[in-house]
Every structure is written in structure tokens, then in C-alpha cells.
């Protein structure tokens, strides 16, 4: 007890540390014998809880799981996990990125990544060799925290900005005008406004010149600064969904002064770029289906990838008429940058959508909600749409609201007095309805997504060399082999630095001859054009060799983006 004061100080620091930690949910605290803590059911995790979960997983298996922090400084950085192969030889790795809420709106996307990662960790031994996972449950933790806390999802980094140039900062933000406890949308009548209300009395559609009445739309609130504009200078900033460099439409308040001008977003982009993922699974959006971000010159690859993921999504989640599209998502989207600059095969999987949960808590499918409507999200016979149709999606959500929710989840447009003789209409989607489901429905909405991810990861293209014959007659040896893709995806689906390069999807089969082996017939290098389909088998390739007794043949096949297999043979 000589150093009682040091022990006391250490104890005090420990207590402070414990107090600073956010309380854990009962299910996360419970020692249920599992190696990796299970994310709690039935609620959204904020960024502190997410970091705690990831830290716990990393501590449970430090050999295979590493906690990382992207960026830092005053914004605390983005917690991330690196799972699996730890070799630094990038060429020998297949890297998969799992990222949640790429638009900053989908809290359910972050939950999907947590569940999927937990599933993969629980069956870490089944992770294919040479596969590395990059896990970023929330690409913008601060933005996500506001959504989890119940704010309306806007995907925006909140920064003090003088958006209306009046020398004041954030002086005209949104207000709850009608006292219903929610801040929704406000429509102000304007003869040149871009919006009008559709026939259903609910949906807003782009106004044609002959349409009337027309409106301009903003957040619900008063003209606090009396400048004639409503809520034009509230607490808001750059929109993560418009902040990446491909198709960037800035400069602007939403887009930033330059692409990735926010330090956190810049750090995220550089972190991902340094690790060059081959496949990215982004969990976000409200279409309930699959959207593939196209890479330059990879149309066939993208179409096949979209179809494969669509089929798997339907299989594991039970979703019907799964929405499926290929195309640039929006100006400055993260997924478009991944696909077009890094060449990553990038798929957005929407955990939430109009057909995800029906009245009985089971999937209904948007098409059955919206049967026969023109331009429905996935009309029969046209599985892969060229791009998402916003009108069709609005219609599907409207049907979902009426058929499944009995109209609850949308506040009908109703008049409010804005002062000065001006009347506006307030209404719109409630916070836990369209962008993210109520907490009680999280589990049902995510049902099967973890198995989908497991299947996709397990199904990554994997080459193998099958030996058909290896016959020896004295020193004369005849060898016939074929290349097999053991994965669920075509070899061309693996994105990376080679994506879009002509001939990059080709495989090359080679046999190595040495001093005790000479090649008598057959080419030492054989090209297999266009790669292999899922579970595909190449044409057979034969060689005639002169091989000394006991010598070993080395056969190797290489493909794009690090695909490789080798086999030794002693005929």
C-alpha cells in the first residue's frame, strides 16, 4: 500500500473511463458464450455504440480483425474494421467493402452492415482464403447520429454557414409550425415553382409549364429573419450524397466548394482508394432492391452482377419483384466514384423499400402493391431497368402507405398561416416511415440480409485448375487441364484497377518448363478470352511434354484484379 495514491488515481481514471462509455444494451452486455457480441435487436445504434461494437469484435480476435479509425480531428473520425487476410501483398487479396448509409440517410443501412459483419465473423473460418473485408458501418457517423436521434434524414454535415449571404449564420432554420412535434415539408405557392401535387393529393411531381397550382418546397418553418425566404439558412451543410467527384454538380451549399472538401469524407475516400476494393456492397437507399453503379466500359459485367445479386436478394430475404437497376445514381454519389474511378464492382442494396414488409410483417413486393401501374419498378420481363424511375418509386411508396400502413406515416398537406397574409401547406413523410422503418421493424426488414452477404462473399470468383489427364509413356507426358470458376459470380464481376481495360477480363493459363522439362506441343501461354461465367468451366487445354522422372510441372492461371490459381503436378 505504499503507492496507494497511484492506485487511487488509476482507479479514478478507470471510473471516468467507464462513465464516459455509453451504456450497452442488455443483449450486447450479455455473456451468452458467443465470441463476438451480437448487435442489439430492435433499435438503431449511434456512432459511439457502433465503435464499441467494432472495438469489441477486434478485441475478440485481434489476429483476424483490426479496428481502424478513418480521419480524425474534431470530427472523431469514422470507425472501420478490417477483417480477414492480413497479407500486404495486395495482388493476392480480393477485397470486399461493406459500407452503410452511403447517402447519410439510411440508418437501417448501418444496421445491415453490423448484422452482416457479425454473421461473417461468427463463421470466419468459412471466409474464402485471400479475402479481406473492409467494414464501414456508417460513412458519416455524425450525420447518422442525428438520424438515430430522430431527426429527419438529410444526409448533411451540419456546419455554420451563411447560406443566404446576409452576414448571419443559421438564423432561419426549420420550425414546427403546426405543433405536431415533427418538422416536415412546407409548400409555398409560387407561379414559377418547380413542384405540383399529383392526383393522389400526396406525391410531389415536377411541374409542367401548364400545371397549376405550382409550389416551391422547403423545410417546415417560419421566415425567422424576415427576408421573404423560408428556412433558407438553417443548420445544414454539405450533402454526403452529392459530395464525391464523379458527376459532381458543385460548387454549392449541398455539394461543397470542391468535391470531398469535408476532411472526413476526403479521409474516407483516400482510405478506400488505398485499399482498392474489388467489390463494394453499399447498404442504403429506399427502393428495397438492387442498384449497380456502372464502371466505364463494363456494361456486360454490371448487368450480370445486378442480375446475380437480385436473384440472391430475393432468395435470402423472400422479397418479391425486387427492384433492379443499373446506372449512375445521382450527381456526386459515392458509389459512382467507386465504380468509375477505382473500377470497383459496386452494388447498392436497399435494406428498406415499399415492398420489404407487408401487413403481416412479410415481404409483399412493390409490384404487387402497384399492380399494372405504368413504369412500375420492375415490370415482368424487364428485370434490369436502365435507371431508377422516381415516379414509379413514389407510386409504390404511396401504395405501401395505403395498403400496408393504412395511411399512417404520411402527414397530408394541410394549410398553415405563415404570417403577412401568406399561407403554406405543411405535410410529408414522417421520420420513421420511408427513409427508415420504425425500430420495431428493424429485425424483420433485415431478415436474410446477413445470409445474402455471406453468400456473396463466399461466391466471389475463385479459380481452380482441374486436371483431366496426366499420362506418362516413358518420358513423354500428355497433360490436359481446364480452368474452373468455383465462385457464384463470373470472373469479370470482380472489379478493380483492371476494370474497363480492353481484354482485362481474359484469363491466362501457363505451364512452366524447366531444365528437366521441355514442351513438345502446345503453347506455354494460353489465353481464355472473356473470363469464365459463374461456376463456369473453360475449354480444355493440352500439352505434350518431355519430362524427366520425378520432375514437377507447375501450371498457373491468372486473371484480372489479382485472380490466380496454381497447381503442381508430378506425372
Amino acid at each position, binding site marked *: 500500500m505504499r503507492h496507494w495514491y497511484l492506485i487511487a488515481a488509476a482507479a479514478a481514471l478507470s471510473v471516468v473511463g467507464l462513465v464516459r462509455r455509453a451504456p450497452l444494451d442488455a443483449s450486447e452486455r450479455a455473456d451468452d458464450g458467443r465470441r463476438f457480441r451480437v448487435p442489439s435487436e430492435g433499435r438503431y445504434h449511434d456512432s459511439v455504440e457502433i465503435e464499441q461494437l467494432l472495438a469489441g469484435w477486434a478485441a475478440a480476435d485481434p489476429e483476424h480483425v483490426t479496428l481502424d479509425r478513418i480521419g480524425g480531428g474534431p470530427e472523431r473520425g469514422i470507425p472501420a474494421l478490417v477483417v480477414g487476410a492480413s497479407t500486404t501483398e495486395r495482388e493476392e487479396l480480393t477485397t470486399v467493402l461493406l459500407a452503410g448509409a452511403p447517402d447519410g440517410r439510411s440508418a437501417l443501412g448501418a444496421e445491415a452492415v453490423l448484422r452482416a459483419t457479425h454473421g461473417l465473423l461468427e463463421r470466419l473460418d468459412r471466409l474464402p482464403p485471400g479475402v479481406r473485408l473492409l467494414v464501414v458501418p456508417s460513412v458519416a457517423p455524425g450525420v447518422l447520429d442525428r438520424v438515430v436521434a430522430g431527426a429527419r434524414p438529410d444526409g448533411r454535415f451540419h456546419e455554420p454557414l451563411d447560406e443566404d449571404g446576409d452576414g448571419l449564420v443559421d438564423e432561419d432554420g426549420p420550425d414546427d409550425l403546426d405543433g405536431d412535434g415533427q418538422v416536415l415539408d412546407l409548400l409555398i405557392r409560387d407561379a414559377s415553382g418547380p413542384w405540383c401535387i399529383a392526383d393522389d393529393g400526396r406525391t410531389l411531381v415536377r411541374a409542367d409549364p401548364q400545371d397549376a397550382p405550382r409550389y416551391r418546397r422547403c423545410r417546415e418553418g417560419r421566415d425567422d429573419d424576415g427576408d421573404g425566404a423560408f428556412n433558407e439558412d438553417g443548420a445544414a451543410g454539405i450533402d454526403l450524397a452529392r459530395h464525391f467527384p464523379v458527376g459532381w454538380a458543385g460548387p454549392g451549399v449541398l455539394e461543397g466548394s470542391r468535391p470531398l472538401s469535408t476532411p472526413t469524407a476526403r479521409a474516407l475516400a*483516400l482510405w478506400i*482508394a488505398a485499399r482498392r476494393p474489388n467489390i463494394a456492397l453499399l447498404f442504403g437507399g429506399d427502393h428495397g432492391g438492387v442498384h449497380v453503379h456502372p464502371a466505364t466500359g463494363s456494361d456486360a459485367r454490371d448487368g450480370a452482377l445486378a442480375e446475380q445479386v437480385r436473384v440472391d436478394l430475393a432468395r435470402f430475404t423472400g422479397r418479391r419483384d425486387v427492384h433492379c437497376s443499373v446506372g449512375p445514381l445521382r450527381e456526386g454519389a459515392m458509389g459512382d466514384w467507386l465504380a468509375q474511378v477505382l473500377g470497383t464492382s459496386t452494388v447498392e442494396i436497399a435494406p428498406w423499400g415499399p415492398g420489404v414488409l407487408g401487413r403481416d410483417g412479410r415481404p409483399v413486393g412493390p409490384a404487387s402493391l402497384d399492380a399494372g401501374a405504368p413504369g412500375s419498378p420492375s415490370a415482368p420481363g424487364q428485370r434490369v431497368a436502365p435507371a431508377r424511375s422516381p415516379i414509379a418509386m413514389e407510386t409504390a411508396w404511396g401504395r405501401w402507405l395505403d395498403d400496408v400502413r393504412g395511411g399512417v406515416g404520411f402527414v397530408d398537406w394541410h394549410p398553415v398561416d405563415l404570417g403577412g397574409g401568406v399561407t403554406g401547406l405543411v405535410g410529408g413523410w414522417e421520420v420513421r416511415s420511408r427513409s427508415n422503418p420504425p425500430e420495431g421493424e428493424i429485425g424483420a426488414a433485415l431478415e436474410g440480409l446477413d445470409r445474402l452477404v455471406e453468400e456473396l462473399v463466399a461466391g466471389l470468383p475463385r479459380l481452380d485448375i482441374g486436371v483431366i489427364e496426366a499420362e506418362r509413356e516413358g518420358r513423354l507426358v500428355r497433360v490436359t487441364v481446364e480452368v474452373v470458376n468455383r465462385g457464384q459470380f463470373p470472373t469479370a464481376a470482380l472489379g478493380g484497377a483492371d476494370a474497363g481495360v480492353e481484354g482485362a477480363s481474359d484469363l491466362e493459363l501457363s505451364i512452366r518448363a524447366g531444365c528437366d522439362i521441355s514442351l513438345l506441343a502446345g503453347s506455354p501461354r494460353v489465353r481464355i478470352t472473356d473470363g469464365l461465367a459463374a461456376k463456369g468451366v473453360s475449354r480444355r487445354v493440352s500439352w505434350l511434354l518431355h519430362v524427366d522422372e520425378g520432375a514437377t510441372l507447375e501450371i498457373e492461371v491468372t486473371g484480372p484484379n489479382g485472380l490466380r490459381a496454381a497447381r503442381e503436378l508430378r506425372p
Partner: protein
Amino acid sequence: MKRREHVRSAERSAGFAVALVSSLVLLWGTRCGRVEAGSVADGLDRWASRVTATSGLPVRAARELGGVVTFRIGAMEGPAAAVLVDADRAVRGEGSVGQLAWRAARVGLDPRRVAILAVVIPVKDRADARGRSDVSARNFPWRWEEARRAYGAGAGVIPCELPWVAGVSDALLRSPAIIGVVDARDPGPRGAADGPDGPGTLRGLVEGRIGAPYARDRTAEAALQLAIDMPRARIHGEAWRRVGPRTWVVDFAVDGGEATENASATEAQPSAPFDLTLQLRAVDSRARIAAFATAEGPGEALEIAPLRRGRTRVGMPPAGAPRRCRAVLVMAEGARGGPSLTVEARSNRLVGASLRMAPTTASSPVFEQETPSDRALSASGAGTTK
């Protein structure tokens, strides 16, 4: 027994000694950390103070990404002429930045309205980046996607991938108004600094995005000349009429560009349409501004324009044609005498101006122009800034 007490006492003393030493070490460590953290900031501030002491002009220093440091010399708001210098030139003694400020002071640069933004770039980082990859030339955030398609990895995986490129871009884009950029950097071993022009280049960013002229000139004298020749707004008081017992009408005109002695008219005036912000203030509380109207051209009718907290924005043509304005002032009930009005014109393309107008008599109003006139650079005999 005594011995045991003695031992206990010795233990207690030793314990306290350890505690004292630990505390001192802790305090010393904290103190060191604080001094260390403070010294970095002090270094920059000290540098800025030294430039101020040399030149007598206000200087504000700021850190950007990638080791880039900016010094804003002169007015802390409003337009600025930017000069890009290499760090090795800037750190020798007081270096280029100090000399630039000193010369700016000598030629009478008005520190209330005109500014020079010196952007100091760490050469070593730039060289390292070039050594690793040839990214820098096309990595600036202007038509970057085109640069990416044309030059591939040479344009980087994101715009501003190189931290110093981000630092320079942020410094230029965040400044309220850059009226021109003089690139005074060492061209480096390749002969040309960061590419001539086109997608992804610094020149493209300056000319295409910021809309300001870009020049390469190692002397940095050009930046000073640019600041001296900065176009300035003018307000012309025209007429002051009493139209009712308490109502007064003030007519004035604003234009966007006064060519200085050294600059040709095309250099001095903005080459594209721009916005001019007018701030109108009734000088005393007895009067209020009831309305504001403006006409686009000399023959056009005056149209009522919105006035928010006395502020309005008028679009200006590039050629410098004046724009007619009219303010209507109403005196408070029972107030005696006439009102007076101050108009301030500000833009991100011009040096601002202000004019105070007061009718001493209805027939002979006073128009007091507050825009100063800087002396021409050539008259000062200033030398080169190398």
C-alpha cells in the same frame, strides 16, 4: 517498536516523495505539451507579427492542408490579389512575403480595402509527391473528371489527392474574392510548374472556376501590381430632392470599375457580369429608407427592388456602364432637418466604395466619396520582390 515507527515514517516520507516527483513529472509533461502545442501557433503568429512590423500592414496567417500557409496582407475582407510562392523562398529571413508586404506599404496600398493573399507552398512535399506519382499537374478540382479520363492515374483518385493541392485550392476557393493569381513558384526541374492549362490544372481552376486572370511571374511583383490595379466600385451622387414634407428622394449611380493610371480599362474592369451588394443606411434614427429602386441601363425605367435590412444586390454588366439607383427616405413625425444616407458598395470582384450623402440645402447636396486612391506602383519606385 521505535525502529518499526521509524521504518513506517521513512516509508511514509518515501511515499510522499514519490508522489511529489510523480506530480512534478506529470505537471512538467503537461506543461511541455502545452508549450509545444503553443509554440507551433506562436511560430505562425510570430511570423505574421514580423511581417506586420516590417510593413506596418495588418497580416493574418492561416494553416491549410498539406503544410500550405497563407498570409493575408491588408484588408481582412473583400477582394485580394493572390500570389503563390515556394516555402524555401518565403522562409529565408522574412522572405518574399515580408518583402511583398513592405513594398505594398511603400506604394500606399490601402489596408482597409485592398489585400494580397500570399500562399506559401512547401516545396519538399511537392517534390516528394512528384517523385511518387505524377499526380500534381492535373489534380486540381476543375473539370477533374475530364482530367481523369484523359490522364488516368495522373489526375489522382480524387481531386486534391495531394494535400498541398488541397491546401492551395482551399485557400483560393475560400477567400471571398480572388481578383487574380500570380504564380511565382519555382518552375522546378521539369521546367513548367503544374501543367499549362486545361482540365485539372491550377490555371484552369483560377481562370475557369474563380474567373480571375492567372499569370506565371517569378518576381511576384506582378501580384503587387495586380493589387494596385484592382478595379474599384464607384458611387456617383446625382440628385437629392424633397418631394413631400417628410419625404426625400436620393438619386445615385454605381458602376463597376475605375481604371487606374497603370491599368488599361479591360484589365481594371471585371470581364464578366457580377453582383454588387449595396448597403444603404439612414445615418440617424429619425429617418428610414422607405423604398429602393434601380434601373438596368441609362434609358430603362426604375424598378422597385427588395431591400432587406438595408441591403440589396444588383447585377452589374461587365463593361462598366453605371446603374441608376434611387432611394426614398422618410423622416420621422416631427423631426426637423433633412436625412442623410450612406451607401456602401461591395463586390467580390471590386474594391468596395462608400458614399455619404446629406442635403445641407435642398439645392446643394454633399456627396462625400470615401474610396481612397492608391498611388501608382510606378510612382513609388518599388523594385522587384525576389
